[in-house]
């Protein structure tokens, strides 16, 4: 976000007045929405960069709704003095709502702040705080994911038993093993083969 990114709109008019007074205590709020290109990394096709026609700007929770001009500028007309809230709705981007003070005493002065991080704005230029990724990224196939699946665990456990256990047994002391074998024989613990239906053959 902080990185300087190539802006979609290079044209930057110098400090256009954000408020201009209209008639009878009604003011206009002018601002612009800037969506930097390539913000974040995984830009997928759904938030077409440069497609500003589906961006909406909403005042006071939908009391007024306006749209963006091709250069990203928007304006609300005939707004009474007071403290207002501007929200930007754009699929694929997260915008912080902006608190805007329209005052009768100081017309033409910008008093705006992002409500999410309380950052003041010198100009009413709204930029997304972050990109929104609505889908989980499907992870490319990897052995690990296969192994982590229940089936993988099953196979893994079996392999471990089949191959690691004999190794463990091998490492035992020869004497001890003999004793164990002796014990086993005396107790008649069936071996794996005798457990199986065909095991009774021998």
């Amino acid at each position: 976000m902080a990185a300087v990114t190539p802006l979609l709109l290079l044209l930057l008019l110098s400090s256009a007045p954000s408020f201009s007074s209209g008639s009878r205590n009604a003011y206009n709020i002018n601002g612009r929405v800037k969506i930097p290109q390539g913000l974040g990394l995984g830009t997928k096709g759904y938030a077409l960069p440069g497609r500003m026609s589906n961006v909406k700007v909403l005042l006071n929770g939908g009391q007024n709704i306006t749209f963006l001009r091709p250069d990203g500028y928007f304006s609300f007309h005939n707004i009474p003095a007071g403290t207002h809230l501007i929200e930007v709705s754009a699929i694929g981007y997260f915008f912080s709502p902006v608190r805007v003070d329209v005052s009768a005493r100081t017309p033409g002065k910008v008093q705006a702040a992002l409500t999410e991080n309380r950052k003041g704005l010198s100009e009413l230029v709204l930029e997304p705080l972050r990109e929104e990724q609505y889908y989980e990224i499907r992870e490319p196939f990897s052995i690990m994911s296969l192994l982590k699946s229940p089936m993988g665990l099953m196979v893994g456990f079996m392999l471990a038993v089949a191959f690691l256990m004999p190794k463990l047994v091998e490492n035992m002391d020869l004497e001890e093993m003999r004793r164990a074998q002796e014990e086993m024989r005396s107790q008649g613990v069936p071996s794996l083969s005798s457990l199986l239906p065909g095991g009774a053959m021998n």
Partner: protein
Amino acid sequence: MAIRSFFLFILFFSSSLSPVFSLYEDQVGLMDWHQQYIGKVKQAVFSSQRAGRKRVVVSTEENVIASLDLRHGEIFWRHLLGADDVIDGIDIGLGKYVITLSSGGSILRSWNLPDGQMVWESSLQGPKHSKSFLLVPTNLKFDKDNVLVVFSNGRLHAISCIDGEVLWKKDFEAESFEVQQVILPPGSDLIHVVGFAALSQFEMYQINAKNGELLKHESASFSSGFSGQVSLVSTETVVALDSTGSILLTISFQDGKISSQQTPISNLVEDSLGPAVIIPSSVSGIFAIKTDAVTIFIRVIGKGNLEVVEKTTHEIAVSDALSISEDQQAFALIQHASSEIHLTVKLAHDWDGNLLKESVKMDRQRGLVHKVFINNYIRTDRSYGFRVLIVMEDHSLLLLQQGEIVWSREDGLASIIDVTTSELPVERDGVSVAKVEHNLFEWLKGHMLKLKGTLMLASPEDMAAIQSMRLKSSEKSKMTRDHNGFRKLLIVLTRAGKLFALHTGDGRIVWSYLLRSLHKSEACQSPIGLNLYQWQVPHHHAMDENPSVLVVSRCGPSSDTSGVLSFVDTYTGKELSSLSLDHAVVQVIPLPYTDSTEQRLHLLIDADKHAHLYPKTSGALSIFKREFSNIYWYSVEDQNGIIKGHALKCKCTGEVADEFCFDTRDLWSVVFPSESEKTIATVTRKLNEVVHTQAKVVADQDVMYKYISRNLLFVATVAPKGSGEIGSVTPEESWLVAYLIDTVTGRILHRVTHHGSQGPVHAVFSENWVVYHYFNLRAHRYEMSVIEIYDQSRADNKDVWKLVLGKHNLTSPISLFSRPEVITKSQSYFFTHSLKAIAVTSTAKGITSKQLLLGTIGDQVLALDKRFLDPRRTVNPTQLEKEEGIIPLTESLPIIPQSYVTHALRVEGLRGIITVPAKLESTTLVFAHGVDLFFTQLAPSRTYDSLTEDFSYALLLITIVALVAAIFVTWRLSERKELQEKWSFYSAFASQSTFSSLHFSDN
């Protein structure tokens, strides 16, 4: 200990904070569907571009402007304007800009026709409110600029078509002047503004279109006055009706001179017809008047001579004029005849000759034709062909061409009033074996393909096959009930008075029915649908009956007009019966009782506070009498700020004996002080909500009992000053008070004030908690609060003995006057977005954890785990609390993009979210409606009771095969090893014996 930690690990694993609803991009459309609508078309303009795709630009009553494909009816682009931004007029300028005038003529916007990008926007002010007109002259230029002429708010503007700059403006400030028409005679630089002043004065202004200079002002007075609209019959003649509606005034203002002629309607038509109204049309030389039963077309010949050309009693709709050549205008006329509509296209100057006459079969469920728009095209043989766009009574939009319906759009679905659900029929016939085998093969093949997909071995074609296979799965769109309860019918009532049944599998319309009872009639002038209720849900002994829904409607906008009930079968979509009530319907209370045929008892409260029981059967009455003293309800009077509780008293004491009518009595009332509080929201629990357990085990093995009562009401009030928009009050003079009220006793169980806060309040009530969303003026952010209410009287019943012997066994008396021992816990958090709707997931048994569904201002639906709104959250939860799943407290609620239920889609104009439990406990069905419709399935705690969609059966099979193979291999190996061991043992023995024998022989 190890086992315990393992268990905790599993618990953590399953309840980790990663978004529970998350979707891969290729899963879009598997369980969800999204439909885009526009609403009832008000105005349509055909794009006359020769090249490229044919389009029609429409404006609708839902404040949508959209560009539609004329070939298929699909939406190219669409914009939903604000709720107050009603569109007054649209047109196409320069062939490439769509011009819209909205907000009572105060906002003019221009949109790029191909892609819908807004080009410019101008705000037009004026001295006073007036009618607004938007005119796009084709030949009026001003320094090479094409000019738009707009009359709005008592001011005439000329505006550049390129950048929306106002070139000149002219005020019409005369106090009583009411503009009726703005006329641009073709080929001249003049603008004529005509209107009435002081009720009986006709005024005509002639204005220079180049600079707005007033050239001429003429007026003439008519003692009889005017009524209604005027119709323009030529660029210099208008027709108006006098105030009695019986005399036609033909006023012409040729060369700035006003001359007029009066013709009583009775001179034209023999039989007297009563007062008439003019139907505005733009066809030159012809206008129409309509009385109660008859529509009369009248031609104007020369200077004010009138002649009746047609008189018809059929319902009729006329289009605007379409110039097909220099001096020829055509228009379309549609007449109804039982199941057909007759379309005729005529030339303006030649009534009897028809350019085109076609009959089109029309579905009766579409009702009457409301609007017609005509467009022409040139056929291959260079003759003119015509196509018409018609808007029907059910708000659908159809394109007719060459006697056929080319396409139709069900735009009635853009304005849903109420939604309910119905089960599908049970599958009766068994599935044949052959089919299963075939399916098995297909099934295996599909799963092999899927496996290839997971192992990244699939080619692109395979991937496409997998995707289409998943999307087309016929299983989900079957017309029978399924085991998991995913397939249902969504029954929706639209503003047009039409019922639709949508299949939850794919969103298709199963049936639709235009309610006859919602037709305009003598008794019922402007019927409007109100609500839908489940009338009959057969499941026990009435299995053979079809389920049905009850549609409650009333005859007018005010609540004291009489009501109409209709009963509609949800399998067939046929109206079973309808009842015109002789009383009003103010409130409908579905009672939790059903009669022997599973019909649900409903209590209808009328304007005189009588309660009427439905169905009117003796069985229902006897059930009702049994429960007579257990029925309580409440009513909210928004204006006075009073909430009242009611109960039944006795049979009606009116003059007519009616067994099913009951008098009521007021039990209690809560009066909010009108100078400091104004009710803005009331919410109760859903009637059919299921709660699994009352007890809640908290971290330290302690038990808390939820206070679960069906009779809890959440009420939010704000300071009267703060009931307006955000920014209209200062934090000091605004507050919000939240109440929890018991609706049986009227006792206020909890009250909390949020200083410096204001509405709008969106709230949802479930189990023992309520969550509400409001605006905090001090922080200037939205806030969400949760209140949980617990029953303290049971807090001591912690062991079995106390439970049995304690005071809360059922024999102890419960009194209304004893104060319930409850405690409440609450907490507040910041939330970023404005909300449009809020709902909570509901599951079949209530075991699954809950998610809040928040309809944000951006028309998306966000799923937020209820655990984020838990009053027991602290900044540093203890280890035990962490184990329980308590999330460390944060200032604001997180917005995780993956938990948007609507993923990358918008439910444009979102109005409501409905959740319905599926039979499968883990899953809930979510339906969000606005101008668009969206449906999906949610599993708030993941699908723990069924395998997920992407479960690979093939991998399971392969694993099993591999395991079996491994078992055999190891068996062989072990057998061989054993044999070897034996051999070595024997050989050792043998060698020993030979050795010993040698030894012996040695001896």
